[in-house]
């Protein structure tokens, strides 16, 4: 038998350790070195596992087998939807939201009515849940001292009352230390994370003890259970309960977000969004570990105590005690205490914030008393209200526990609470993703869902406890059969939770959507809808300041802040804000819309968005913008975003176009320069023969006594220069025609071999005259090509006459080869002349550039032959190039595609 004083001492020590951790966490937070790491955040989410998990899971497993797991599978799946949670955190941070009531109220136009309704639903739904925690602590104490009743008296006071009192004290000390603008309680979060570790260790310890100490491991426990037909049923899933399974997963998935304590630790206490990445697997892992021994312990208990042996809810304590393992029982007791205290502390803090901001403040703000206290500092009053609220909630919980006792209303309360907070889902999710959702719709949805929940779940649980007449459950309200509370409209065959969930969600979602579609939001609502739904897109660019117009006084707003935040904190925040606007003293700030927005947000952190809104409008003269104007501004903002994106795209297109134009311009300039060069070269080339013709003619004209021989020579030169001139002009015209594309082409099938042979014959006299050897080698059976015969002849003649010009007389030789190269016909003209340098190879195809030194030697051609030839060959789709090295002769090669590939003329 354990000594009562020892247990009290142990509990006190444990609570003392919690105090120390919380104190340390707060001190670190004040020093700016937060101890909230990703792991602490992930563990703090495990406040989800209350004593209902710690003691109750085993109890549920003894009756429902594995179905208790749904309570933990739902949160696992919900947490994987990280995007939804991050969006909630982002919105809450942008709007300084401090509770779930504030979140919903803020979205629907900062409505005090909505905030109040959410608070009332939460309090009604949660107070019994708190009572359950007190009961769990009381029950575990009773087991520890082996007393049949739940009342153990210390100093004449009921121990459960004592527990409630200590919890209230702890919560007050660490939950309402100061009014933080963001309502963050880092010390409390650290303490809760520590408690999570303790309860996990305790549960795993008892699990290992039962599974491996009392039995021979998992297999042994399961095999023994399977031997009992009534226990074997617990090890199978009953597929007829598929609906209950699914609705339980849905319900617990919603609860992990909407229970006020979960919203508090997950959203409000979140320090860094990236912590969620750890929580997304750490928290489910925690749930898995704390559940893995539940079934073995339940089966072990049933096997050990027999069917009638004691309360399954306390198996985790009674099993170790039955083996005399008292220290393990103490550890389990501390684990259960952790589970209960963690839940109670966070839940009461969350609820007290809601009660203070959303129930008491609105009433207080209307009262004359507050109006008389115009100048006084109200931050103390706010803290006072919260402390009273905490004490009151725990007192309510205690009273409920006392009243309900062993009654059904307490045992089933876990899921009943889940179903209550699930009613927030349509208004909250709808508000985050659907701009059309209105305040009227949210109110209607919540009221309908809450009423159905009340009628189908809470009141029947009262009836089952015998507090109220149960005729409405058995026979229907007013004896109307289809109003039977747990078979509404004759819907039977479902368990009570699924039944309630189905009808309440139908009513809730239906009313929310129908009323939203038939109502128009006011200006404020429309603005908030935009900020919530588009929180990722807006970031800092929300036209917050443009959605407010009016007159405000800087000092009045500052006084307001001082009253609610306390003078010190208000000045701190004002100075911080002034720095962000690059002003040294906040008094020199303009009292503009942006400042009003800042003041309202700061106030919202302290007293909730609805009350903050009311306070700010009481000291400013605000112009009503009207819905149309607000929508215009929001549309404009959306359009500006769209336009800026368009603009960006257009700018890129413009830049590309500019680059293209610049390139084209460069090309044009180059062409222009080339044209100028061409003209000056042409005139120069024309002047050279003209000059010699004129000079010789003048000599003949001036001096009639020139000798006949001399005269003949002069006239000979004149004739040849005239011929050169004519050739030059013809070629220039030819070139111009080719370049402008006006040349006439007569395309037909041409035998290249014949053309080459003919050209060789035509130039034969010239070669013989100079004593140059010409060899022509034409491959057999060459196919025809599509080309202009005369033009092709022009190219060959040009190449042959060029070759003969540059080879040495007598020793020179030129060889022509015509051959087929794949689908091309290749003609090469090789000479043994002086050859060309690499540089010359490049330039000889330019107009008026000739081989040899044009400065010293007399030009031997017009300098247009090769450019014209190249134009012709390229017209046929072929190529003309030269291969040469100085001293090794030159080979001019051109190709013509075979008939199939030839271009259409």
């Amino acid at each position: 038998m354990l000594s009562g004083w020892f247990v009290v001492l142990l509990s006190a020590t444990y609570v003392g350790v919690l105090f120390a951790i919380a104190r340390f966490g707060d001190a670190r937070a004040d020093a700016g070195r937060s101890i909230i790491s990703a792991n602490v955040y992930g563990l703090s989410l495990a406040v989800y596992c209350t004593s209902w998990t710690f003691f109750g899971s085993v109890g549920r497993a003894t009756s429902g087998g594995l179905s208790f797991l749904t309570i933990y599978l739902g949160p696992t799946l919900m947490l994987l939807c990280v995007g939804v949670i991050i969006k909630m955190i982002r919105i809450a941070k942008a709007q300084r939201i401090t509770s779930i009531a504030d979140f919903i109220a803020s979205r629907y136009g900062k409505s005090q009515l909505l905030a109040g309704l959410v608070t009332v639903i939460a309090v009604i739904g949660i107070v019994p849940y708190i009572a359950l925690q007190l009961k769990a602590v009381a029950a575990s104490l009773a087991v520890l001292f082996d007393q049949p009743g739940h009342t153990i008296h210390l100093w004449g006071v009921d121990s459960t009352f004592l527990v409630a009192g200590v919890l209230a004290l702890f919560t007050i000390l660490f939950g309402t230390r100061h009014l933080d603008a963001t309502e963050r309680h880092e010390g409390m979060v650290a303490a809760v994370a520590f408690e999570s570790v303790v309860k996990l260790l305790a549960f795993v310890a008892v699990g290992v003890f039962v599974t491996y100490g009392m039995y021979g491991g998992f297999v042994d426990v399961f095999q023994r259970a399977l031997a009992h037909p009534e226990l074997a049923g617990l090890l199978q899933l009953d597929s007829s309960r598929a609906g209950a399974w699914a609705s339980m997963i849905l319900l617990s998935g919603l609860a992990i977000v909407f229970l006020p304590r979960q919203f508090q630790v997950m959203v409000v206490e979140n320090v860094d969004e990236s912590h969620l990445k750890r929580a997304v697997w750490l928290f489910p892992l925690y749930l898995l570990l704390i559940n893995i021994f539940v079934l073995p312990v339940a089966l072990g208990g049933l096997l050990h105590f027999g069917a009638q042996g004691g309360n399954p809810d306390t198996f985790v304590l009674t099993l170790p005690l039955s083996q005399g393992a008292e220290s393990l029982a103490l550890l389990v007791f501390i684990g259960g205490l952790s589970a209960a205290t963690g839940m109670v502390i966070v839940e009461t803090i969350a609820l007290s914030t809601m009660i203070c901001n959303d129930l008491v403040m609105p009433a207080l703000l209307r009262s004359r008393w507050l109006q008389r206290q115009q100048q006084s500092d109200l931050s103390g009053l706010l803290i006072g209200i919260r402390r009273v609220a905490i004490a009151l909630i725990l007192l309510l919980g205690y009273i409920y526990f006392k009243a309900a006792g062993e009654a059904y209303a307490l045992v089933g309360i876990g899921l009943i609470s889940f179903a209550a907070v699930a009613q927030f889902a349509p208004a909250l999710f709808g508000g985050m993703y659907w701009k059309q959702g209105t305040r009227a719709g949210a109110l209607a949805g919540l009221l309908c869902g809450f009423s159905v929940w009340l009628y189908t779940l809470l009141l029947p649980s009262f009836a089952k406890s015998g507090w109220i007449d149960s005729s409405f459950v058995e026979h229907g309200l007013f004896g109307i059969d289809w109003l039977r509370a747990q078979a509404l409209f004759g819907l039977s065959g479902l368990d009570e939770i699924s039944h309630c969930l189905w009808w309440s969600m139908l009513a809730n979602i239906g009313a929310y959507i129908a009323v939203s579609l038939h109502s128009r939001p006011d200006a404020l609502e429309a603005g908030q809808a935009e900020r919530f739904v588009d929180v990722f897109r807006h970031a800092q660019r929300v036209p917050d300041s443009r959605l407010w117009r009016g007159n405000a006084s800087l000092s009045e707003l500052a006084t307001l802040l001082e009253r609610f935040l306390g003078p010190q904190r208000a000045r701190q925040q004002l100075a911080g804000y002034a720095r962000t606007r690059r002003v040294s003293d906040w008094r020199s700030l303009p009292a503009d819309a942006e400042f009003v927005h800042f003041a309202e947000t700061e106030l919202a952190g302290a007293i909730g968005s609805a009350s903050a809104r009311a306070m700010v409008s009481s000291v400013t003269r605000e112009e009503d913008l009207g819905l149309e104007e607000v929508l215009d501004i929001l549309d404009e903002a959306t359009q500006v975003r769209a336009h800026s994106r368009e603009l960006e795209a257009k700018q890129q297109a413009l830049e590309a176009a500019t680059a293209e134009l610049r390139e084209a311009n460069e090309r044009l300039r180059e062409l222009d320069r080339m044209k100028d060069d061409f003209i000056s070269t042409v005139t120069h080339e024309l002047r050279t023969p003209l000059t010699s013709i004129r000079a010789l003619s003048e000599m003949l004209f001036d001096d009639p006594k020139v000798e006949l021989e001399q005269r003949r020579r002069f006239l000979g030169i004149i004739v040849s220069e005239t011929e050169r001139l004519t050739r030059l002009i013809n070629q220039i015209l030819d070139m111009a025609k080719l370049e402008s594309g006006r040349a006439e082409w007569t395309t037909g099938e041409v035998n290249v071999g014949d053309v080459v042979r003919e050209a060789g014959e035509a130039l034969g006299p010239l070669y013989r005259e100079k004593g140059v050897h010409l060899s022509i080698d034409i491959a057999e059976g060459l196919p025809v090509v599509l080309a202009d015969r005369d033009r092709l002849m022009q190219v060959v003649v040009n190449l042959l006459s060029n070759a003969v010009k540059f080879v040495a007389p007598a020793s020179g030789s030129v060889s022509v080869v015509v051959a087929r190269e794949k689908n091309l016909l290749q003609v090469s003209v090789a000479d043994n002349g002086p050859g060309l340098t690499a540089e010359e190879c490049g330039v000889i195809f330019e107009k008026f550039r000739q081989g040899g030194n044009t400065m010293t030697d007399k030009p031997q051609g017009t300098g247009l032959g090769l450019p014209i030839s190249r134009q012709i060959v390229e017209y046929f789709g072929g190529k003309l190039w030269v291969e040469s090295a100085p001293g090794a002769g030159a080979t001019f090669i051109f190709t013509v595609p075979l008939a199939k590939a030839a271009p259409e003329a």
Partner: protein
Amino acid sequence: MKRLSPVRQRLGALALFGVPLLSFPVLGLPQGEVAGIPAIFLYLFGVWGVLILLAARVAERQGK
């Protein structure tokens, strides 16, 4: 324009994947026992554990 983060999408896909695996009618499939332990017990904790493992891999890979 802010794109949807791939990590969030992958985790969301895991949730969508997990829902049918952890509800009926799939849950009706594991029958009998494996190595002396009821198959449904192994199945539920197995699927749950694998989901957690995958989520951890997806979420923690991002940091590197």
